């Protein structure tokens, strides 16, 4: 993202906000991953213990998701997504004032 139009105090504020957002994103990534893997891998509730097939599924699901997210993140950056989206937002805000 391009914060060059902000002054030093504003840039410091935004950096702080981005750090908070990253911490939030990380916890959400984690809980989303748990939800997804649980949903896909666990369908038998005749026991409360995780079966060995279920466990293997969860481990693979986790590993694959991390590799998947990395790939999506890399492609997202290549698309210059930040710049495109902020330009889009600005043009709408400008029209609305």
């Amino acid at each position, binding site marked *: *993202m391009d*914060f060059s*139009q*902000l*002054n*030093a*105090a*504003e840039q410091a*504020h*935004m950096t702080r*906000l*981005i750090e908070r*957002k990253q911490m939030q*994103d990380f916890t*959400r990534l984690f809980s*989303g991953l748990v939800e*997804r893997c649980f949903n*896909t*891998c666990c369908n038998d509730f005749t026991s409360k213990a995780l079966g060995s097939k279920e466990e*293997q*599924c969860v*481990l*693979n*699901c*986790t*590993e*694959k*998701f991390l*590799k*998947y*997210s990395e*790939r*999506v*993140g890399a*492609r*997202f950056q290549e*698309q210059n*997504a*930040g710049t*495109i*989206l*902020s330009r*889009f*937002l*600005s*043009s*709408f*805000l400008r*029209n*609305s004032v």
Partner: protein
Amino acid sequence: MTSLFGGGAHSSQGLNPERIEIATAEIEMITDVFNRLVSVCHTKCIGTRYTEGDLNKGESVCVDRCVAKFFEVNRKVGERMQQLGANAQAGGSFGGSTL
């Protein structure tokens, strides 16, 4: 009390509330778009059998195309909305005027 960020500091050292709010909206938008992209391309491209932990060739290629296509759709939707005159104010007619 004109801002959620307190104070009305408009000096070059202080925080300009409006600039901060727009930058914040940008960050929230990018995060939101990214999270939806992650969810949507996972559903389109990743198998649910999980017999391995690696992305296989087919999945990898699908992911790359899915991201590219998603951005294409992003652009098309944005253009169409502008043609139709939707803007943040009009957007107010969805969530906004409901308040």
